[in-house]
């Protein structure tokens, strides 16, 4: 009986061991084969998550990429920049201090790298973020943008910083600031003749002229903004109805250049016949005709 029991116990142990072995094999088989994900792939995944608003997942990807990448390598900088951007712009749970620290880390690792240029710009943009809906102080913004312009004057980030700096100056319609911005923008057009930002620069000149009451220059800048507008090769048929409308109304109500106003109202009517402003454009054409007829009659009156 005793022997029989011990035999049973031994058999039981064997069975348990076999089961455990099968279970282990099974679990090993079920597990994914170990595969190291490249940091570059993780950075791309991080940005995908970021764009979908999955900020916590994005942070995990960027942090993992940062940990795996060779310090100071391009991928490492990208991972740090991605993490910093996420901390900066995620809502809720943003951490601007942490973001700034990470942007500075990118700058310290590679001060002349493109990532450093975008990091400087991001640091300036932090200063431009409204606090509880109130406009931030102007001077720190202008200084921060100036830092980017000084370090990267011809980099895309530097050009963007320059335009944001001028736009910040125009945030309060003050004649002194507007004159300063106008001069800077005119200089930018001269020195950055190949910049893709020229259209935006002309747009800001239009705004300076609105504040300063420089009507003829405003019309000229509006025309230049139209001429320098970029055409998207994937979407070449752009809706210009708004541009035509702006040129026509500036010409009619500010510059008093009725010939130009008529030309652009007519372009709007011909090219966008179902646009909602067509009726108003026709009314304005008639109003200009009526005014000119009245003034002509005055001129011929004895």
């Amino acid at each position, binding site marked *: 009986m005793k022997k029989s029991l011990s035999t049973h116990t031994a058999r039981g142990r064997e069975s348990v061991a076999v089961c455990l072995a099968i279970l282990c094999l099974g679990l090993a088989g079920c597990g994914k084969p170990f595969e190291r994900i490249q940091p570059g792939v993780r950075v791309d995944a991080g*940005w995908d998550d970021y764009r979908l608003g999955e900020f916590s997942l994005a942070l995990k990807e960027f942090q993992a990429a940062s940990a795996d990448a060779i310090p100071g390598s391009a991928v490492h900088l990208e991972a740090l920049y991605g993490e910093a951007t996420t901390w900066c712009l995620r809502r809720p749970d943003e951490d601007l201090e942490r973001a700034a620290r990470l942007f500075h880390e990118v700058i310290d690792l590679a001060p002349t790298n493109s990532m450093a240029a975008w990091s400087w710009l991001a640091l300036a943009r932090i200063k431009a*973020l409204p606090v*509880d809906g109130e406009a931030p102080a102007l001077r720190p913004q202008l200084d921060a943008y100036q830092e980017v312009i000084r370090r990267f004057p011809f980099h895309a980030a530097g050009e963007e910083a320059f335009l944001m700096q001028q*736009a910040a100056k125009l945030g309060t319609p003050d004649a002194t600031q507007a004159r300063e911005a106008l001069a800077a923008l005119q200089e930018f057009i001269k020195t950055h003749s190949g910049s893709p930002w020229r259209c*935006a620069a002309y747009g800001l000149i239009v705004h300076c002229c*609105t504040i300063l009451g420089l009507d003829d220059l405003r019309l000229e800048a509006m025309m230049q903004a139209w001429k320098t507008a970029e055409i998207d090769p994937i979407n070449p048929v752009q809706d210009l109805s708004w541009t035509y409308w702006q040129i026509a109304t500036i010409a009619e109500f500010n510059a008093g250049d009725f010939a130009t106003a008529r030309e652009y109202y007519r372009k709007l009517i011909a090219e966008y016949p179902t646009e909602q402003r*067509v009726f108003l454009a026709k009314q304005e054409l008639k109003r200009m005709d009526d*005014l000119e007829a009245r003034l002509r009659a005055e*001129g011929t009156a004895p």
Partner: protein
Amino acid sequence: MNLGMLRFLKNHSALIVVTATFLWSAVAIMTSRHEEIPAKGAIILRLGHWQLEAGVREAFIAMAAKYHELHPDVTIVQDAVPEGTYGQWMTTQLMGGTSPDMIEVGLGGAIPYNVMMGYYSRYFLPMSASINQPNPYNKGTSLEGMPWRATYKDAMRFAYVEELQEYMQIPLSQFGVRIFYNKDLLRRLTGLKVAPHNYREFLEACRKIKSQVDDRGKPYTPIAGSAYHVGMWDGMMSDPLTYGALRRADFNHDGAVGNDELFVGFKTGLIDFSFPPYEAKFRMLRELTDQFQTGFTGLGRDEAVFLFAQQRAVFISTGTWDAGSLYEQARGVFEMGIMDFPVPAGDDPEFGRISEGPVYERPASSFSFVITRTCKHPEAALDFLRFLGSQRGNEELNRIIGWIPAIQGTRVSDMLEPFDPHLEGIFGYMPVTLGGETIIKWQQLYSLYQVNQISYKDMADEFLPFYLEHGVQEWAEMNRNRRRGMARDEQLLAGVRVLAEKAAPGEAVSRWIKYRQMMTVRLMTRDLNAALLQKKLDEGVAAHAAGPYDFSPELIAKVRARLHPRAGEGK
């Protein structure tokens, strides 16, 4: 049957019924699933929508059959889901990864805008590349070779999602609102064969209708109205009278009056409630609502339709979406007509000088479909949408439903001819609310006005001081909200820029252009117009200030100098 068996059946009847029902439903589901199993290599595409109106499902069945003739390997199955649960249904299907291959989007209020933006990027495929290519199903038509987008009456303007800088939807129909009327009743009560288009004649017809009673002595109602319908009459008739406000308050000359601009107009004394077009709007609204049945504000759409179908009212306003259903209800009972909204004549003593033209109707296409990312055959789904969005396909689809096609050069059924949109004209400009408190106050007073419990003057007298006082805080809050939105734009733009940086050379140019365009509009210039308007507000009331569309003396001098250069020199 023995007693035991009977007792067993009696004691277990509920269980037996439940079991039988379960077995029946299981067999039914298995049978239908079996029928849906495609043959080897065949494709089944599912299409989800909320259009339960007469004709829509039939139209999809017919179009699917036609498409199947052209492509025997493709079968289309539709899921028609009631409007009330569509939002929840779509959300659960998308999140569960079980959504149809094509799904209708754009149901107002079903899903909040910001959530929908998330759905667009997460669950739907962008269409920009496809819609700039010609639609192969337009071969042999007047639209052959044209980019698909350009073949739409509205150039697919509303299919573009600016946040994503992509065209995301394929629209299939256009819609409009008109007046439907009972021709027989109109003839019997007024002697008119056709409903009058002139406003005064229309009111006269309504007066005649109201003055008569039926066999049981009950008076007839000229217009079947409800809380649902009153907005249509206001939007198509009385509100456009306020168009003239443009010349007083369109400070940025964009051809529209925003609620911020109107507030500045009121604060600076350029406009007020005594502005004749504003008074005219409310006079006309009163004249119209006087023709509705009593207590219309407490009634819903169905009550008004019932009154019309019961031949107790002559006129009812509704849209193309209801045309088929109304015709069905009238069939064999009375002859129904469709008419445009009446307009005041140029010599109308009250409204002639104020009404500057016909009402503008924006040609917008909707009934839009997207392709989901879970679709296993996106090229086949796109091809089916191309088929429905072609000149011939779109005409046929809309002919069956009884709606207006979205594609150029398509024929509209005779019934829908009065729905031809007015592509030139005026629209309303009276956005007199800024935020929470002014909205509530205005709604309260406006409701009282609608039911004739308050006069326009009393309404204006009570609202104006409230608007001018509370509007200041609400104006400031509006500006704060605009700034608060900046972080979200920054968030979006950071993602767009990285996408541009990482794009392949061919695509990068386009991506960078989109980035710069978005950057300029959303961040660089977002506060500039608001700042100019704030300056105007801070300057306060300016006596004899010129309106934004007035020719200033300086401008007239410039024009004079251009016309008479020598006279200018002499001066």
